[in-house]
């Protein structure tokens, strides 16, 4: 089985600050990878590099499928195949929920409005929002908005889904509904890379957990390896701080 994402020697600087120090990571097709670590450890920067929302240093190389991630002709194609869900939802406020989901398949994939609408309604039903299709995003709760954002990304039939702290901006009582949608998605064979602070979710759903600190991957392993038998001091300290409350 081939790797869906191949990252080698990924370096990223913000001015003089080095956010990522030469990362290497391969993610297999259908794999669910959770990236955990303290704030400022570079986890969001890492997944934002995968679809080039964050430009990286020239010696770095990222492949999605067989296509290199780089500015130019291929970029829109890579992005169309890589869905992303943001911490702050970023729904389009001037479009209804239905139109939010329909827009990119029509414009990028060339679907007819009728087909895009059928597909959008299916996806909205899958994330449990079918009743709100005609409303504007501003009328929905945070949890509902994030589920629409997931449907919007899925509408492109992506090979890979990136989640950038998808529950961090939610009220606590809405975290569960979003995680439930993500859990059901993990069972469908979509490759998922999830930056998260939800350790319970990572333990239960991830095939592999990546622990990052200081712009480096400190260790990776199965949830049992990382959560129950962490090898590194820094991993133990981090987990001790987030789990013992």
């Amino acid at each position, binding site marked *: 089985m081939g790797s869906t994402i191949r990252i080698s020697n990924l370096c990223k600087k913000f001015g003089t600050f080095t956010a990522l120090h030469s990362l290497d990571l391969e993610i297999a097709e259908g794999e669910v990878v959770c990236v955990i670590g303290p704030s400022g450890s570079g986890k969001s920067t890492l997944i934002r590099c995968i*679809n080039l*929302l964050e430009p990286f240093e020239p010696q770095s190389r990222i492949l999605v499928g067989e296509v290199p991630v780089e500015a130019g002709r291929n970029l*829109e*194609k890579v*992005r*169309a*195949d*890589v*869905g*992303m869900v*943001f911490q*702050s*939802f*970023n*729904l*389009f*406020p*001037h479009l209804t929920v239905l139109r939010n989901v329909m*827009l*990119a398949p029509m*414009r*990028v994939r060339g679907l007819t409005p009728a087909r895009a609408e059928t597909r959008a309604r299916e996806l909205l039903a899958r994330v449990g929002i079918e009743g709100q299709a005609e409303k504007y995003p*501003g009328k929905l709760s945070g949890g509902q908005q994030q589920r629409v*954002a997931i449907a*919007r*990304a899925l509408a*492109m039939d992506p090979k890979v889904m990136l989640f950038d702290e998808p529950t961090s901006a939610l009220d606590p009582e809405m975290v569960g509904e979003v995680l439930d949608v993500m859990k059901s998605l993990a069972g469908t064979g979509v490759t998922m890379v999830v930056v998260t602070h939800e350790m319970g979710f990572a333990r239960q759903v991830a095939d592999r957990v990546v622990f990052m600190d200081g712009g480096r991957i400190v260790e990776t392993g199965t949830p049992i390896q990382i959560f129950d038998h962490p090898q590194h001091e820094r991993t133990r300290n981090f987990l001790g701080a987030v789990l013992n409350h």
Partner: protein
Amino acid sequence: MDIFDTFFNVPVLIRTFPLLMSGLWITVQIGVVSIVAGLVLGMALALVRLYAARWLQVIAKLYINFMRSIPLLVLLIIIYYALPFVGIRLSPFMSAVSALSLVSGAYTAEIFRAGIEAIPKGQFEASSALGLGYRHMMVDVILPQAIRIVIPPLTNNCINVIKDTALASVVAMPDLLKQATQAQALAANPSPLIGAAIIYVVFLWPLVAAVSRLERSYGKADH
């Protein structure tokens, strides 16, 4: 002769009213053409200013700053009286429209730029992440949101353009102000000027009121 005979002379006003209305028609023509041309120019300039190659951005900024600094009357005189010396001869109508749209385009560009910059970064990122190209991102996502923000200042700019059409009278355009000053000379009475003032106010008042209404309703809009 009291003030009413001098400034509010009803027979004179009635007699010159058709003349003033023909002037208003010219004013509206100059205004509408200049506003539309200014909008197109302004949108293009704003996009260049934000997204074009660095040197084009600098040129756009120089143009914008120059057009915002030069008095409109000076620009109009240059276009109408100086350009013929280099072989460019524009009719009074074209001179007025050129001067007004060149300046209006500069102001409009700054309004559009502010509107686009007011759209949160997440909207650009979400569009990019979906694979939308630049054109679709602007047309489907960014500009529809920016338009809502820029409608009140754009309407203000329209009001200014229509008021500034009065300057066209210096290049012999028979606009509202020119007709009023001519009527004043013919009637030997300044009442037509008062008539023109009333027409300007009656004509622009609804636009001014619309701006306040829009500003209030967008202020309340929840996003």
